[in-house]
């Protein structure tokens, strides 16, 4: 072994030990510091409620707004404030800054009775009622839809059923198939291994712990171990620490999913591949992807382990819209909405895309 190499190792050892002690000291100070970990700070107010659901309207940040409002449909899993995590990483704030009139559905926490709600209840009733409330409030014919994850799939289902009410459709990491080499979730949810009937029959609503473990198991080394190593490495960076804690808070504030809706979602979309094969039916009505002819933007995360691009692409390829754009962004499932890069490079562009297509006046009256 060369002596200079030994010297270098010794130097690194001393250097690292110093850094380690400093970080440990900082980590021990953390509980004593007033950390800013508030979430969802963009001002909004409730304009419609129905059972657990609340429809939020965000206060405009520009003098003029584009005529076509936007409804954000979040997943039934987790809380929607990930789209408004902090002022400098807020999808909602970015869209408001582009003059978009933003509404969001906060599904709330399903109660015991909600286990009997079907996917059709969510699509044809709740989303439709929210959309009707916006149409009435804003006096418009059409509304744009932006759906994230399961909310993206629900937006697709809604748009296929009520195409005349949707001006533009934007989907973010929306799963439409898990049957074509789509990674671990696709394999684990195979009907041969996963009995969703038994899960729902036993628990009613799907427990948040079950969902949480399933998502973390998709990449346990990075999610359960490396994530915390990275936290320790950056413990002296206050901005990093606060951002980390906000994401942790979001991860720990998950909500259970209404049992019957979850069961239907897994069986028809994950296990039978009915949506990707364009053979899905909902509440007795056919979901026809060919009806999606409006401007559509499909956003997928290149490093998304939960909803890899292959899980969404069949949708993008199947729709006949002549104004459709596929955006493959180098981020993971959550990174799409909260990473620094997404906020500096992706969301301003999406805001511009939407603003351009929210111009046409379609007022009912005058």
């Amino acid at each position: 072994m060369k002596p200079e190499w030994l010297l270098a190792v010794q130097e690194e050892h001393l250097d690292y030990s110093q850094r380690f002690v400093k970080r440990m000291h900082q980590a021990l100070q953390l509980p004593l510091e007033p950390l800013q970990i508030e979430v969802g700070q963009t001002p909004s107010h409730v304009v419609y409620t129905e059972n657990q659901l609340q429809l939020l309207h965000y206060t405009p940040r520009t003098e003029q707004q584009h005529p076509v409002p936007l409804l954000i449909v979040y997943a039934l899993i987790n809380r929607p404030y990930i789209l408004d995590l902090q002022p400098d990483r807020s999808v909602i704030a970015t869209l408001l800054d582009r003059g978009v009139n933003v509404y969001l559905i906060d599904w709330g926490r399903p109660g015991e009775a909600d286990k009997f709600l079907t996917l059709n209840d969510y699509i044809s009733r709740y989303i439709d009622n929210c959309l009707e409330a916006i149409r009435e409030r804003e006096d418009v014919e059409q509304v744009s839809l932006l759906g994230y994850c399961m909310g993206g799939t629900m937006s697709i289902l809604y748009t296929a059923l009520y195409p005349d009410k949707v001006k533009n459709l934007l989907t973010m990491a929306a799963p439409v198939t898990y049957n074509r080499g789509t990674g671990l979730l696709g394999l684990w949810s195979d009907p041969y291994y996963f009995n969703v009937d038994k899960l729902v029959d036993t628990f009613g609503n799907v427990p948040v712990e079950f969902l949480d473990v399933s998502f973390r198991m998709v990449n346990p080394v990075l999610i359960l171990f490396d994530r915390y190593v990275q936290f320790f490495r950056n413990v002296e960076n206050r901005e990093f620490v606060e951002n980390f804690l906000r994401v942790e808070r979001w991860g720990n504030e998950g909500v259970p999913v209404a049992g019957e809706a979850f069961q239907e979602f897994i069986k028809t979309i994950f296990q039978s591949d009915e949506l990707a094969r364009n053979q899905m039916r909902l509440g007795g009505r056919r979901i026809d992807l060919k009806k999606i002819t409006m401007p559509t933007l499909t956003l997928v995360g290149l490093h998304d382990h939960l909803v890899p691009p292959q899980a969404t692409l069949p949708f993008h390829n199947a729709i006949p819209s002549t104004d459709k754009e596929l955006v493959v962004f180098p981020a993971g499932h959550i990174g799409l909405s909260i990473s620094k890069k997404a906020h500096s490079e992706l969301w301003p562009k999406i805001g511009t895309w939407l603003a351009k297509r929210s111009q046409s006046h379609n007022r009912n009256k005058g």
Partner: protein
Amino acid sequence: MSRSKQGSQKQFAQNPNASDLSQLFQRSLEAHRKLYETWLEATRDSLEKLQGAVAPAKAEPPPLSYEGLYDLWINAYAKLFTEAMNTPLFAATIGQYLDTMLEIKKGLNHSTGKTLKALGLPTRGDLDEIYERLIAIDRRLQELTKQVKGLAQKIKNLRE
């Protein structure tokens, strides 16, 4: 899973008693052991491949910092571990584990229900019946509200 074991789980879920409970406890331990073994196997498998995966390309000098070495290791390990889990064996083990745990939970639900019934208290099944009716009434109300709104609009249009 053998048929007799599956039968025992189903029997327990429908009508649990002390001996079934002990059998199910054993099944639970076995499911835990199997999951742990499969997990260990995935770990061993990925560790075996790790040396080759982290060997830097000949042209590149090895990283000298601890953090550089850690990064090299963790990325290779995460990739290999995910690959090791992406197998039918791992999926089957997880599926069987979940199945066993659900049978136990179902059995316990049933047992709790029997106790509540004996005490004259409403069981989960009783509540579910009410919930289901409540949701059905709620749906009907929603339909009627839509119809009334539609009619009101038609009347308004006629008047105009």
